[in-house]
């Protein structure tokens, strides 16, 4: 039984780390631009395809494909931000939150349909990062998942280092706290909006590239992770990267353990996602701002 619980917990941790990468990207965007990015799941999807085509057309190794996907997703996100989101920063734009929701929702539909036309409707599976499985006694985990977990941890460590140990990260934090104050001390807020949207997109695209070999790619693959990421961002506290990481891990492990231990096995898989939302509701009853949310953080 102990082995079984350990295996399930490890499985949940791997899924949770992937969730955390997607949610951390969403959080970076929210905390700086103050918009809920409904196109985040589609950037995740595009990242998967960028990696797939980089590997199959350019012949680059799968691991380098992840880096390529992050760079391409960064560029795609910057393009979206520069062309469609700049009205958010204009003092003449009213109801910026509504504008952000409508525009990103439109982008999500556009990207999903573009993917359908350009990449085709058929599921595609990129080659494995590492073939075979790690077998340690009763523990079996494919090397793809082990690699995914390691790469996702590396992405999160880099993000935390960037946000807390670099001048650019400090500037992002300043813009997230007060755009006006940041501008007064000479921070070009437009540059950092672009950087934040690009960084969030790169994380989503990197996650999409990582899951390709285990879930396959399809134009609709962003729908569920998007929903999960929103729940995680709220659970972790709107605007808190560390909160998103912890909440992602918590949701991943709780879903896995629910499937593993729910007394009625015929319903465990069906109710797993509902269970994660139940966790969210319970936490919000006790802590309405989530784990690390700032009370003042809200949509403009």
């Amino acid at each position: 039984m102990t082995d079984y619980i350990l295996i399930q917990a490890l499985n949940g941790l791997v899924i949770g780390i992937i969730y955390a990468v997607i949610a951390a990207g969403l959080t970076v965007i929210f905390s700086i631009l103050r918009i809920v990015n409904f196109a985040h799941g589609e950037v995740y999807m595009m990242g998967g395809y960028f990696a797939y085509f980089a590997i199959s057309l350019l012949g680059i190794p799968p691991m380098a494909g992840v880096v390529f996907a992050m760079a391409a997703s960064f560029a795609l996100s910057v393009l979206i931000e520069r062309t469609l989101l700049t009205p958010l920063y204009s003092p003449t734009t009213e109801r910026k939150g509504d504008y952000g929701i409508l525009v990103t929702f439109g982008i999500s539909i556009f990207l999903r349909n573009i993917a359908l036309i350009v990449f085709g409707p058929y599921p595609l599976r990129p080659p494995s990062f590492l073939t075979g499985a790690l077998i340690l006694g009763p523990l079996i985990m494919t090397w793809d998942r082990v690699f995914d977990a390691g790469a996702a941890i590396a992405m999160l460590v880099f993000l935390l280092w960037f946000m807390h140990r670099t001048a650019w990260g400090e500037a992002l934090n300043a813009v997230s706290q007060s755009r006006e104050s940041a501008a007064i001390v000479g921070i070009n807020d437009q540059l950092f909006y672009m950087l934040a949207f690009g960084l969030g997109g790169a994380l989503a695209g990197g996650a999409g590239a990582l899951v390709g070999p285990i879930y396959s790619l399809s134009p609709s693959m962003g729908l569920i992770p998007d929903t999960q990421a929103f729940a995680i961002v709220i659970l972790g506290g709107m605007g808190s990267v560390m909160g998103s990481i912890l909440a992602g891990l918590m949701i991943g492990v709780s879903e896995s353990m629910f499937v593993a231990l729910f007394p009625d096995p015929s319903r465990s898989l069906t109710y797993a996602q509902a269970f994660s939302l139940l966790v969210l509701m319970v936490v919000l009853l006790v802590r309405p701002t989530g784990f690390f949310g700032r009370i003042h953080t809200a949509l403009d």
Partner: protein
Amino acid sequence: MADDSKPAASILPSAGLGRRSVLAAGGAAAALPLIGNRARAAGEPIVLGWVGPLSPPGGYAEGTNMRYAAEIALEEINAQGGILGRPVQIVFADTRGMPAEGRTAAERLVQQNKVAAVFGEFHSPVALAEMEVFHKYGTPFMACDVWSDQITAKGYPEVFRNAPAVSLIDVTIGQWIAAAGFKNVAIIAEKNDVGLSARTLVQQELAKAGIKFDAVDADPNLTDFTAQILRFKSNATPYDFFLAIYAEAGAYPMIHQAHDLGFAPTATCGAYLSGGEAVDPTFWENVGDAGTFLVTENVGLPKSAWNDKTKAFVASYKAKHNNADPSGAVMESYDGAWLLFDAIGTAGNTESKAIIEALEKTQYVGARGQYSFSTSHEPAWHYHQFLDAPLTILQYAEAKQSQANAPIVWPKEYATVPYVYKKPGT
């Protein structure tokens, strides 16, 4: 809907231009000045509707393949001169796999596009929503790759089905599992109308044969089944068979996750994927070695029973679509179009009642064999059902094997190998 009731100047191109039809055409020509609008309509195309998922969240990959098949049928009929001397058009409506969108699409096809009849669809819940519209307006509907018993059990005179129903498919699957000698079965079923009724029917067959089973229902959008497969794997009484009844994007990850975790298909546990994904052209790219020894059903004719139309269609489809083998669902869409072309030709007009009557009497031979539709209501799902719909169970013997060349293990009359099931490693 009815837009024309003129006599059959010609029916199908295969029908000869006999004395009677020449006279009828002459009579119609003589009547031209008298009938005004009716005469101008003679050159207008006959419009048919096609419904199915062409974009997310529905099964848009197979929906797209089904559309390709309908386009081939359309090219063929127009190259042969159309129907009743008129060209044919097909209006393709994307339902996105959503019942509400299916209903809207059905309304639009009938009210705006004035279609004479409709065919297609890939999702039973969507077909059930669309049927209500077609029933309201009396528009004939040929349901193609939708398996829910309810579709024909409702007893709507407008609704026909050229695909097998779950009562045909899943009873056969249950019987095959019993014949293969499995004793303890783990089932994951898609949580929707088709998945749940399929699971229930298989369970009934397993119970009859005294086979133990445990069933789990799963949301159609899931892609990660690792936790559940690990739970199956740790069961106190090891399972010797894994049955996945799943037609959505999660089917491929489920199969390779089961394989990667050493659950199935292995020497101790067989695996079956029901729902059509295992005969799609992208199956091998997505599952790799996990597909070897996997068992699945095919709702197309087995290669040994292919007729000239099957061979011609397969050749045409492969030539147009990257040499991909058409699945049974694709052939259903192709035959669905031709059944309607044939029925309109036989009816001699596009009146709904005449088309329905022609479909009830049809003996049309298509790419999936000779069609006839039951008019019995006992049991209810038999009504307007193609009861002889082809169904075979195949088991891949090697990686990247074409479904047309995979050994057929069931039913016995179509089997191409002496065994019912081949264990991996034997």
